[in-house]
């Protein structure tokens, strides 16, 4: 039993929600996390329907009174200031996130520290400017009517409010839709997942210190996913719904959204990597192996951006089998450096089941080899000497397929086409675009360098589509109207 010294024990309350001024939540439950002599008392709301209604109305009022009048450039400035805070290691919210997230999510503390630092940087001003520019030719059309090549003058409007359903697989991912919504001047109601309810709250707290009126256009709170009464109110009272997460989450919310309102969802996806022979030269292969392992180990493949299968081309200085063995060794190494999260029974059993399946197959099929950590499920590599494709049970489990030519990869991907997303590559420039072209053809929507798969850029066409455009509606003032109005101007002859 731990001895608790009440004199030295420090209790710090942490709210796992953030709501605008003048709104209230009345019922709560509590959880605590103890780190050394400090106890973090986490307060989670149990929102009622009436409270949620009030909350949404307040968000609408705040949006109308403030956010709708800001120019996009001003919004970017305010967000950038909050992000600048987070790039400082002394930022108290960032420090709290780094302390509590490893306990809440089970991910390795080093990984969280490093990834948050990297992740937050993609929202700095220059990146946001690139993002809006990428999505909208003239971002200013969100502020005012601007002339178009067609002759019309056009302005774009976002929804007044957006209901965001966040997933909890990757810490911080929620900030992305939150910022996106704000850029189109929509107030955000964010429902967090209990798997990671903290980071978006901390981010809005930072924003509140810089610009409380802007922060009051956001409400972040958790409730149990599938609570239909709350979700129905949220989906009908807001102007658009965005769901991140499993098909189950999408399926339970989609029917609640009126068909007249935008509904975006980001569901199941599978990513993979391709290593060309040119990356397996004596000069390059050690780095190639390390990069390949990054894509497997960061966040234990819980992100849809993480690789689940690697194609390795024959003809390099080391064989695909040798590369697979090096990847296995590097995974063992990585486990010492940054251990994988502790798994639930179903997760661990899924790994053992899939390992068994391939071990049994390997008895009569010499093209399959299972390389795996002994006595536990820490990491697994299944090597296939015959090219093919399959997905993994996740948590540092990867399939490696030997292939004669990377150009042949697409023929193995057919069955998985609707789920394919990112491809991390290690190839030379002469092949890059022809390979990218073939992958694009069968539906892959993101190609990045090996080792960077889990770190998507904000300008990425997420799952192959625009991010902001799908939320907007446009008003065109046609030339006839412009001319006719001129004629009605009393000051014109």
């Amino acid at each position, binding site marked *: 039993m731990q001895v608790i010294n009440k004199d030295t024990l420090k209790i710090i309350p942490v709210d796992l929600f953030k709501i605008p001024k003048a709104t209230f939540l009345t019922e709560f439950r509590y959880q605590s996390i103890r780190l050394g002599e400090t106890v973090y008392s986490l307060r989670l709301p149990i929102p009622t329907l009436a409270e949620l209604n009030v909350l949404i109305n307040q968000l609408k009022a705040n949006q109308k009174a403030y956010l709708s009048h800001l120019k996009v450039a001003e919004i970017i400035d305010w967000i950038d200031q909050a992000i600048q805070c987070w790039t400082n290691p002394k930022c108290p919210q960032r420090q709290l996130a780094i302390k509590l997230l490893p306990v809440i999510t089970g991910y390795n503390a080093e990984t969280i520290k490093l990834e948050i630092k990297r992740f937050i940087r993609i929202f700095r001003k220059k990146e946001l400017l690139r993002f809006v520019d990428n999505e909208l030719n003239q971002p200013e059309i969100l502020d005012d009517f601007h002339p178009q090549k067609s002759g019309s003058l056009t302005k774009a409007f976002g929804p007044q409010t957006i209901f965001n359903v966040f997933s909890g697989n990757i810490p911080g991912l929620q900030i992305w839709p939150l910022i996106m919504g704000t850029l189109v001047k929509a107030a955000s109601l964010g429902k967090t997942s209990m*798997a990671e309810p903290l980071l978006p709250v901390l981010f809005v707290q930072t924003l509140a210190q810089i610009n409380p009126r802007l922060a009051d256009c956001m409400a972040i709170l958790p409730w149990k996913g599938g609570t239909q009464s709350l979700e129905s109110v949220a989906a009908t009272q807001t102007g658009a719904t965005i769901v991140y997460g*499993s*098909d189950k989450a999408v399926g339970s919310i989609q029917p609640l959204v009126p068909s007249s309102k935008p509904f975006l969802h980001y569901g199941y996806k599978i990513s993979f990597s391709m290593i060309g022979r040119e990356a397996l030269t004596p000069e390059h292969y050690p780095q190639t192996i390390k990069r390949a392992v990054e894509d497997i180990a960061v966040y234990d493949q819980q992100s849809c951006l993480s690789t689940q299968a690697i194609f390795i081309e024959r003809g390099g200085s080391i064989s695909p089998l040798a590369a697979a063995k090096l990847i296995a060794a590097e995974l063992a190494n990585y486990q010492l450096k940054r251990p994988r999260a502790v798994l639930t*029974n*179903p997760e661990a*059993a*899924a790994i053992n089941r899939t390992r068994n399946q391939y071990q*049994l197959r390997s*008895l009569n099929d010499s093209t399959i080899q299972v390389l795996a950590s002994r006595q536990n499920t820490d990491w697994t590599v299944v090597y296939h000497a015959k090219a093919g494709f399959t997905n993994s049970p996740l948590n540092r489990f990867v399939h490696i397929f030997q292939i004669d030519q990377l150009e042949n990869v697409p023929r193995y991907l057919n069955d998985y086409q609707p789920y394919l997303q990112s491809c991390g590559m290690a190839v030379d420039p002469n092949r890059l675009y022809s390979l990218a072209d073939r992958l694009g053809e069968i539906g892959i929507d993101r190609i990045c360098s090996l080792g960077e798969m889990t770190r998507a850029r904000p300008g990425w066409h997420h799952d192959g589509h625009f991010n902001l455009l799908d939320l907007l509606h446009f008003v065109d003032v046609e030339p006839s109207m412009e001319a006719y109005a001129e004629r009605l101007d009393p000051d014109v002859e």
Partner: protein
Amino acid sequence: MTKTSTEIQNLVLSFIEQFANSNSATQSDPTFNEVALAVFDYQFQNNLPFRKYAQSKRRSPLLVKNWSDIPLMPIQGYKQLTLSTTPITKDEPVFMSSGTTDPSHRSRNYHPSFKVWDASMKFPFKKYVLPDRDQMTILGLFPGADTNPNSSLSRYVSKAVDYFGDSKSRVFINENGMDYQGIVAALQDAETRQYPVMLLGASFSYVHLLDYLQTHDLTFNLPKDSRLFDTGGFKGQSRSVSPQDLFQTIQKTFAIDRDHYINMYGMTEVCSQCYDQNLFDLYHQFPIKYTKQAPAWVRIKILDTNTLQPVPAGQTGLIAYYDLSNWNSCVAILTEDIGIQDKTGFRLLGRVQGAEAKGCSIAVDQLLQVNQR
């Protein structure tokens, strides 16, 4: 010296007969160990895929000195490999799983002889299901062996009726479906003439029967000592019902109390069954335990899902099943069932579920589900 197929069957048979009245907890380990090692040696020599698997785990009869070190064949092995110590002959009886997760890929368990299987079924059934009598009226709610020759449960139902059923016993389901009127008539007869009956079926058989009885507003007050037997869960069925809900409905419909409800744990891949102990305790006037007990020729271990090492009592994990009566395939099996054990026995907590991914990432089972739609 490696034994022949006849010798190994006789060895297991004599073990079963010798310890028929004992159980897994009370039977002495050294004797079990001796027979288990002999069976492993026999299988290692005669079941090539099991031998290869054992070798891949660096285990052989020379190295294994304790039954708990015999390599566990994952239950998928019965789907992916042909596991038999004797050459498979034309028309050899084989039990196949219902193929609930992948209909094209079923488990296969071959039976060149049923001598051991029948003995392994008979003694524990008597002990745990009929501790108070030698015969009773058995109303079967699962197709018998004549309808379903490749089902181990069908053979089980038929054998139960053969060995322990009186002249009024019958199986009420065949390829044409369930004979609801027949069941109702049999239950009403038992009620009127006041003799106890046993309903015997798979868990999902009851769901359909209860639906029918509810629609027709039928309930029964079954005579004293009537009992209800079920097995299996609801995997792959059109609808699933929680065991509590099911039991409550059963209680209301048949007037059978908890102590007269018994669940059996068995599977296509093994030749023995484990039972809830409550009926045994009730009729022997012992304090009633609701955990399951295995026969003397079986050992159950609960393994950590991550390390596959045994967990301390009271912790959940995967069930490892060591069964001497599995003489023709593999004596040690790693199931996909989650269980928990204490000194009185074990509880079955269900099939291990496919891992649920937390967000956009997709895990194998979910993908399978998606593809099956």
